[in-house]
């Protein structure tokens, strides 16, 4: 891989103003495909979820999946879009082996939803409005696996495997208007936009929007123009940037790369680029010498869609509380700052914390476990927080055991470790590992007495009224009980014995 010249981020922003366009594809969680009755379930045997229509067999015809249209309208409404009174599907014609018909049934100049916006909140609480150009319906392609090449790309491969299970799964493509005025915060805006959109999609229940599963895929289009210039520069299109962090890194990398090219008098080529997770770089893909000609025309196999206004209004009325409003509410309920809420959002922890609270935990401890121990664990394992092998109910149970004094924090961490290791529910882990707090008063009294005897000087200080010294004695008791004592009770006993 050739090393790309980069300008430092600060220098880049000192001379140039970034303009971004974000295209996000969301795979809908409908039960069946967009134009046939095949299942959309993941993980099935390749090509087992196919039929004449999604294989593009001669003679087969599409029929629109109503629930796909409903999801599209709900997304449009949640993005504050206008919903088309009448719109059509169009054929986007191009050849690719994993496209069964060699055209994608999509929408062109008549999208189902258009002209909207999404407010996104940055780390410091500032709200940035991203304008939405359109949201339209289309179908996914099949999946190619290229075998025998070095890069996993089609070039150089000896053969390719085609799986059409994904072909025809409904997609919604959401396209922003050019995002201007973000300046140095452009990468952060890009990340916050995708994060907010992901929350929105999940809140609507139209998709799990798991980026690592390709259920939400982002293309980052970026150009620079000299500060003060109105005209947009030439853009690059970085395809399939598939994590929040990568979205931010890709934008940042492209800003630095464009700046290096432009400041040395070069010109940016309009091209697609591939993003590399390992080092956050992008490399050149396909050069677009001229705009690709997809020969769009209205899909003659489908009738136009004219969603009845009453239906649209009914859908509008039944939208759930949207993420930003919900976070405002939760922020107050949980008593936390903008920054803390932002961290919870970035960690994908909000729903987990909420579910833990619903299962009986208090807000502070639910947040503490998810954002602390469990977030650290997810990070180390390189998985989403929601994929960590513990349920909100289990976290709530641990939190209840702590509140009841049956576990202390240290023991609780060991219980979590046990649950994650697949040793069973918290109660079972406590039992198996013998992690119960020592609540046998006799044993505890003996340990406290022992600690007082071992630390006579400290004991004297406490007798003299220096309560701060109690910590040292408590520490000694914990050591004697191998951490299994309830620190609160130990403190009570220490003070009882030394102060009467």
């Amino acid at each position, binding site marked *: 891989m050739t090393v790309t010249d980069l300008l430092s981020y600060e220098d880049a922003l000192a001379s140039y103003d970034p303009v971004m366009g974000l295209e996000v594809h969301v795979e809908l969680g409908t039960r069946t495909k967009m134009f046939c009755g095949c299942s959309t379930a993941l993980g099935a045997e390749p090509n087992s979820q196919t039929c004449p229509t999604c294989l*593009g*067999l*001669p*003679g087969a*015809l599409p029929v629109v999946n109503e629930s796909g249209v409903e999801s599209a309208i709900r997304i449009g409404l949640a993005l504050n879009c206008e919903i088309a009174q009448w719109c059509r599907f169009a054929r986007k014609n191009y050849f690719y*082996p994993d496209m069964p*018909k060699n055209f994608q049934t999509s929408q062109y100049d008549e999208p189902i939803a258009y002209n909207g916006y999404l407010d996104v909140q940055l780390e410091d609480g500032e709200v940035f409005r991203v304008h939405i150009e359109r949201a339209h319906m289309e179908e996914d392609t099949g999946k190619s696996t290229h075998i025998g090449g070095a890069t996993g790309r089609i070039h150089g491969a000896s053969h390719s495997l085609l799986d059409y299970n994904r072909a025809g799964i409904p997609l919604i493509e959401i396209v922003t208007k050019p995002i201007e005025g973000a300046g140095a915060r452009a990468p952060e805006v890009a990340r916050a936009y995708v994060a907010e959109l992901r929350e929105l999609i999940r809140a609507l229940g139209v998709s799990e929007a798991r980026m690592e599963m390709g259920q939400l895929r982002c293309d980052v289009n970026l150009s620079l123009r000299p500060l003060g210039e109105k005209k947009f520069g030439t853009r690059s299109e970085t395809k399939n940037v598939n994590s929040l962090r990568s979205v931010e890194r890709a934008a940042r990398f492209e800003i630095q790369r464009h700046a290096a090219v432009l400041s040395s008098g070069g010109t940016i080529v309009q091209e697609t680029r591939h993003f590399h997770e390992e080092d956050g770089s992008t490399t050149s893909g396909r050069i677009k010498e001229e705009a690709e000609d997809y*020969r769009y*025309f209205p899909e*003659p196999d489908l009738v136009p869609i004219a969603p009845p206004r009453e239906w649209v209004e009914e859908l509008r009325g039944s939208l759930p509380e949207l993420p930003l409003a919900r976070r405002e509410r939760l922020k107050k309920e949980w008593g936390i700052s903008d920054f803390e809420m932002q961290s919870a959002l970035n960690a994908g922890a909000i729903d987990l914390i909420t579910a833990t609270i619903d299962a009986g935990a208090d807000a502070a401890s639910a947040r503490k476990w998810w954002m602390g121990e469990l977030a650290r664990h997810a990070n180390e394992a390189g998985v989403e927080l929601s994929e960590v092998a513990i349920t909100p109910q289990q976290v709530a149970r641990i939190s209840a055991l702590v509140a009841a004094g049956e576990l202390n924090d240290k023991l609780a961490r060991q219980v979590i470790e046990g649950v994650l290791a697949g040793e069973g529910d918290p109660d079972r882990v406590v039992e198996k590992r013998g992690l119960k707090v020592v609540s046998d008063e006799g044993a505890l009294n003996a340990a406290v007495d022992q600690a007082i005897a071992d630390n006579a000087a400290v004991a004297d200080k406490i007798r003299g009224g220096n309560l701060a010294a109690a910590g040292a004695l408590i520490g000694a008791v914990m050591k004697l009980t191998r951490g299994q004592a309830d620190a609160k009770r130990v403190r009570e006993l220490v003070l009882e014995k030394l102060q009467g």
Partner: protein
Amino acid sequence: MTDIIRLTAAETAARIASGELTAVEVAEAHLARIEAVDEKVHAYLHVDREGALAQARAVDAKRAAGEPLGPLAGVPLALKDIFTTEGVPTTVGSKILEGWIPPYDATVTKRLKDADVVILGKTNMDEFAMGSSTENSAYGPTGNPWDLTRVPGGSGGGSAAALASYQAPLAIGTDTGGSIRQPAAVTGTVGVKPTYGGVSRYGMVAFSSSLDQGGPCARTVLDAALLHEVIAGHDPMDSTSIDAPVPPVVEAARSGDVAGLRVGVVKELGGEGYQAGVVERFNESVELLRGLGAEVVELSCPSFTYALAAYYLIAPSECSSNLARFDAMRYGLRVGDDGSHSAEEVTALTREAGFGPEVKRRIILGTYALSSGYYDAYYGSAQKVRTLIARDFERAFEQVDVVVSPTTPTTAFPIGERVDDPLAMYLADLCTIPVNLAGNAAMSLPCGLAPEDGLPVGLQIIAPALKDDRLYRVGAAVEAAFVAKWGHPLLEEAPQL
């Protein structure tokens, strides 16, 4: 006893129902006829002897068990090779699908089977239904039973020739610009293009989706109506299929009354360039209608002048996209897969070898017409013309109940005469194309022989969308009057094969 193969479908069904004939006897008689004459005619691309006999046996078993039989149970049929048939080859007249065995039945195929119609085999056609002579078939031309050196029309020449040579009493065709009606006209048979959306397109290999329409072909108007009723009706698998009851076509075919009916004659569908004998027979038909009590009204539909031009932009545009799926990846022909070619090259080599010249011509034409920068001028303008033609029809149908015209400007032309002259070939569909562009219903039925060449001439009857029954009412009346006049059905004048 009349020869089995010369019976009408209605008579055949009645005799099977009464036990006078068995379905197996009927199927065997037709299979024997195919064996005897199809080497000369070449109506069939594939004869499904075993499948047909199995279906026939099932009908006889049903009857023996006292189960109710449908109105066409046991009647043999020739299916255009554009409809998918599970387990039976479907080539669409193209090399690119040679050897393809579809895993599913088209809705039309399924409805035929459900109605106990016995499918004898698949009939020859212009490749992908593109043509007016069946000469564009990758599997060789079909002869016109009236004169084997002449074309049987196209694209459904195989279906029409099968009827005219008594190799089946019923057939199915598809009509994108005239592919049912024009072959019917030049072979002296009956063909109907139903209202667009009247018959499901599911499993009918697409040429031009917004124009394609499957329909019935037969030797009599009543037979066509009986078949129409079997294959028509809403299909949830085809979004463009009409969700309304099938017009009462059989009832109309049995009534055959035109007294008081207003019949329009469109100035633009006739006149200069039409063969003299065609004009003569057409004028005679109009007089016959007048004699039967119809009121004849002269009309003008000025936009029809642009129909052919609009058609040759819309149909190729849609075909360029519809045929993109033939890429050698999943089914059909594959050329160059020897490890030395990329996937893209294999696709290109396969399409080069698998598509015939007319198909390539239309793919290139359509690709061009849809290109950015040309779309508005070509595809866009053609769609506007289409709207104007539909309006012309609307205005016409404010004044008349049906429109009549010659089906084709000429009788059957010699094989080879127009193959190198696409424009001359395209003119064969001059009178039929406006109907497809507007989505109306139309029929062609025999109205006599042209004196100069002794070949059949077709009368086209056009009805508004959803009023398919009018075709049968008028058609049955005209047919009865002509048969009375001639003393026998026209087809009896065809030479013995």
